[in-house]
């Protein structure tokens, strides 16, 4: 009989479909794993509601649970319980090493332009905070584009959610 621990270990191996350097567990989108007999219920919280990778994540979870001999049920939780704060420290470091600036911590209210334009955002290549906002949107809804004035590199900034 499959155990919750085995399921978590297996889920650690599933890469994010769009940023494969980080796993779904590191991304913090797996809210819970509940094993009852052979039935395995996994709660998945989307990063963005319109994320096109959501279906791919769901399928990967189902396949992984099935491969362990469990009967999968993936529930997509549509509330505010996922935040970029849930990305694990290891996940943040992997993002940074791959050239994605990890998200700033979430605040009680939604982010504002003042924060986005502030010098608080660090370049993932050289560590400088002399960076400027180039575009609020990037290759996927979860990323913005910034430019580092110090090492003169454009980079992608994970949005705070």
């Amino acid at each position, binding site marked *: 009989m499959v155990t919750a621990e085995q399921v978590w270990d297996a889920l650690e191996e599933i890469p994010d479909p769009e940023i494969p350097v980080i796993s779904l567990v590191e991304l913090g989108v797996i809210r819970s794993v509940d094993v009852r007999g052979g039935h395995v219920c996994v709660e998945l919280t989307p990063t963005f*509601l319109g994320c096109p990778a959501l279906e791919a994540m769901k399928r990967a979870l189902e396949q992984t649970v099935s491969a362990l001999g469990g009967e999968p049920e993936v529930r997509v939780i549509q*509330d*505010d319980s996922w935040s970029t704060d849930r990305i694990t420290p290891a996940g943040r470091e992997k993002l940074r090493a791959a050239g994605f600036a990890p998200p700033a911590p979430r605040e009680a209210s*939604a982010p504002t332009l003042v924060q986005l334009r502030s010098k608080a955002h660090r370049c993932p290549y050289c560590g400088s905070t002399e960076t400027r906002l180039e575009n*609020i*949107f990037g290759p996927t*809804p979860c990323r913005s*584009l910034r430019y580092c004035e110090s090492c003169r590199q454009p980079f992608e900034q994970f949005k705070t*959610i």
Partner: protein
Amino acid sequence: MNERLLGLADDELVIGWRDSEWTGIAPLLEEDVAFSSIAQNEIGHARAVYQLLSDDPDALAFDRTPEEYRCAPLVELRLLDWAHTIARRWLYEVADEIRVAALMDDGDPAVAGLAAKINREEAYHRMHAELWRERLAGAPQFEAAVEKLWPYALGVLPAEQRGALAARVARSEVDPVERGTHTAELAELWDEMTMVRRSAPSGAQW
């Protein structure tokens, strides 16, 4: 069926569709990227709300006749120039923030939770619209576009929330273009939007 939520979902679906029309032809490459992402988010919000309202969200999204949609006329308009497009995005986002904030206090935790999630994402749409409003403020085309779309923007919200919108955009209330009436542009949009669904009723495989 909760009419207010259905109206919200229909607004998000239709404005998402309109936003997506700039993919590939926006005046700046950055805007091509921004409008594509915004469209994806808006349609994602529509999907999430349809899922709250129905076990068959696709049927709710695509199997109604144009007259049965509850979207506001503001989102239906086919706007072919940048000033009008930005004026609509800005007015729509301010209105949307007001109604989503109200839903965050809803007694149903599923509605309140989803509204909180939507609000976090919409923050980036609001910032995008605000940056453009700063750039275009005072330009005659933009001011004329805001003037023209203002009665439509009021129609996005129920009467009790319109005062807040007027205060936020520093305009006085006028007779709104109410939800429940439709523009001729909706039928055209519907025809294109539901084409795949109608040609493959049992579901298309990609």
